[in-house]
């Protein structure tokens, strides 16, 4: 057994039968922790590196019928009931510093914890269960996040193991990490799916928390250092933030010199997953933003198709 697989990392979830994170049918490994704070994030449970309470109130059977979490060893004030006919328990995330053992005590599974520690070997064993499916569909394994490059050694170890099994590898990244992190991982990657959320540095800082200078430098360096790898750049397309010609054309200009950037995809903004903010006790700040209209998407897609020299219908 290879030693490099002993490394541990923080995994959020391993999702089988994914169809959108690279070619074929894939398994996507979501890691915990991100270095950006995009206000529209559809995976808020992946943002913080630390473990967090996952509370689904719908699963609670009520204080009268259960009430385990209202007593020790749960921290005082972590869970509570509000006066009224509905006696399902509420969670106070500020006070709910709970352990995995405490989460396991909840009989309905309403209380859980986002994130668990795993070795690269354990992840590899899990993803290789579908080895034949990957071969049959031309699929593989994708490491996503959060930001998978925040745990470069762990991500590299998993991908190396997958590659050594002869299976296609991909990552999803926003690229806001030191170049050394990215370089360490890319050697084991066949396809890089990377975001290009906003080309304007000021607007990038406003919506993501930091400007995009290093991100753009990283991807330029990645295109040049790894000419044999394939890259697909993507934009989560949000009206009012980046669903405009200016952004699309700026991205096209950025990737133009690099033949290994094989496509530019638009990911229409949606609000699925925003319910997870409730499970985390967080506020979803973009709740009144609209998804892009089909007409706007078609228009922007037309610009991309033209740049790639293809008719829109061919896509």
């Amino acid at each position, binding site marked *: 057994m290879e030693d490099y697989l002993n490394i541990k990392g923080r995994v959020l979830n391993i999702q089988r039968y994914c169809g959108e994170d690279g070619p074929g049918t894939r398994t996507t490994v979501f890691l915990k922790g991100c270095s950006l*704070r995009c206000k529209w994030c*559809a995976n808020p449970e992946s943002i913080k590196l630390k473990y967090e309470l996952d509370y689904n109130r719908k699963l609670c059977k009520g204080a009268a019928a259960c009430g385990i979490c209202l007593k020790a060893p749960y921290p005082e004030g972590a869970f*509570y009931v509000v006066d009224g006919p509905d006696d399902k328990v509420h969670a106070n995330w*500020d*006070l709910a510093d709970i352990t995995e053992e405490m989460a396991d005590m909840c009989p309905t599974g309403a209380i859980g914890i986002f994130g668990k520690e795993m070795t690269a070997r354990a992840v590899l064993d899990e993803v290789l269960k579908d080895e034949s499916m990957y071969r049959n569909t031309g699929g593989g394994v994708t490491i996503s996040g959060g930001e998978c490059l925040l745990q470069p050694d762990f991500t590299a170890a998993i991908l190396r193991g997958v590659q050594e099994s002869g299976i296609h590898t991909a990552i999803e990244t926003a690229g806001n990490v030191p170049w050394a992190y990215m370089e360490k991982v890319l050697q084991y990657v066949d396809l890089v799916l990377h975001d290009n959320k906003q080309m304007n540095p000021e607007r990038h800082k406003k919506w993501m928390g*930091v400007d995009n200078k290093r991100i753009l430098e990283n991807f330029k360096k990645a295109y040049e250092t790894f000419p044999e790898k394939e890259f697909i750049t993507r934009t989560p397309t949000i009206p009012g933030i980046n669903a405009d010609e200016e952004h699309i054309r700026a991205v096209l200009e950025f990737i133009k010199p690099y033949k290994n950037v094989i496509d530019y995809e638009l990911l229409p903004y*949606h609000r699925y997953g925003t319910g997870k903010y409730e499970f985390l006790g967080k506020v979803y700040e973009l709740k009144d933003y609209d998804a892009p209209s089909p007409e706007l998407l078609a228009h922007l897609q037309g610009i991309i198709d033209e740049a790639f020299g293809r008719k829109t219908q061919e896509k």
Partner: protein
Amino acid sequence: MKEIKRVAIALGAGFTPGVNAIIIGAAISAHRLGWQVVGIMDGFEGLLFPERYPNKGLIDLNADAVGKLNPLESDAMGTASMVDPFNVRSINDLDMVEEVDMSDVLLQNLKKENVDAVIAIMMGRGLSILHKLNLKGLQSVCIPRSVENDMAATAVSFGFNSALSFTIEMLDRAKGAAKSAQKVAVIEVLGAQSGWLAIQSGTAVLADAVIIPEFPCDVHKLAEHLKSRINRDRPYGLVVVAEGASFTNQSGAAVSEKAMALKKALSPLATEEESGQFVINRSGKAAVTLSNALQQIMTNEIFPLVLGPWTRGGAATAVDRQLGLGYGSAAIRALKSGQFGTMVSFMPPVMQFVPLIDSLNKVRTVHAESYFIDIAHSLGIFTGE
């Protein structure tokens, strides 16, 4: 117990009209005891990042400065969108965004500035954060503020009366609009968990119905009530609905679990649908949902309107101005008598001090036996329970 010589005032996240009145009440009362008073800029930011501010993030609330404050406004110490020293968003040395626990920095800087105690004007999550700071040794007194009046252990939170007055004014206008258009207005007001603003404002303007989170509303029963009230001489209606209200017996609202599972699986490319359970509600959801549901079973035209954040702005009312001065001076009395870790509670006719933990995790809701419900029923207002 160390003798108090210097007190800091901190203001939690979110806007409440007339907070200056609290500051004035606290400062004047403290000055009379010979204490100095400072305000922390922008929540706790002033002391978390003193280098970003003039005067190290503090504003001197001496007699001269306090004399110049307008008690109707809330502009003395700035505002912060988030006040949580345990999770301060920062950019680390590797240029990555992360949340850092800076509670120790806050406590150290309070000590460095010779602040002996803090008066925290808080609501919602702010109470939990203050409780955590108290557990780490902070000497504090909390003043409750909530335009929705949903804080437990006090009869009236600061800011509620101002919001109520403005809501009544807006409902009067909406009623006028409904009357002139001969339609039924469904007006959404603040109140995610409790319906105080809705029931008190709705009663004041003699609405036809007030729907609050405490009592899920049977839409067909509401429609029957409205039909009984609307006639040729009175061809309009007014329904006040709190934002956290829920509805039963809606036509065509059910979405099968199977359909939802499919939608979830299709994410992120699935087409958005308002009723999706994986989607956070938009602003104005209650008004739109109820309006659509009523329109399906009534022939009268229904229109929704949302007051929402409009209610949070503006100046304080006379009642809140007095209440603010009262809360501020009471907080100083609490500190003087060493009652740290408490919240000032107004239980007419007295101001008292209750342990902060007694207000945490509790919501002050409208009970079925509340006299506000009795009043509404006496006036023929449908309340849904």
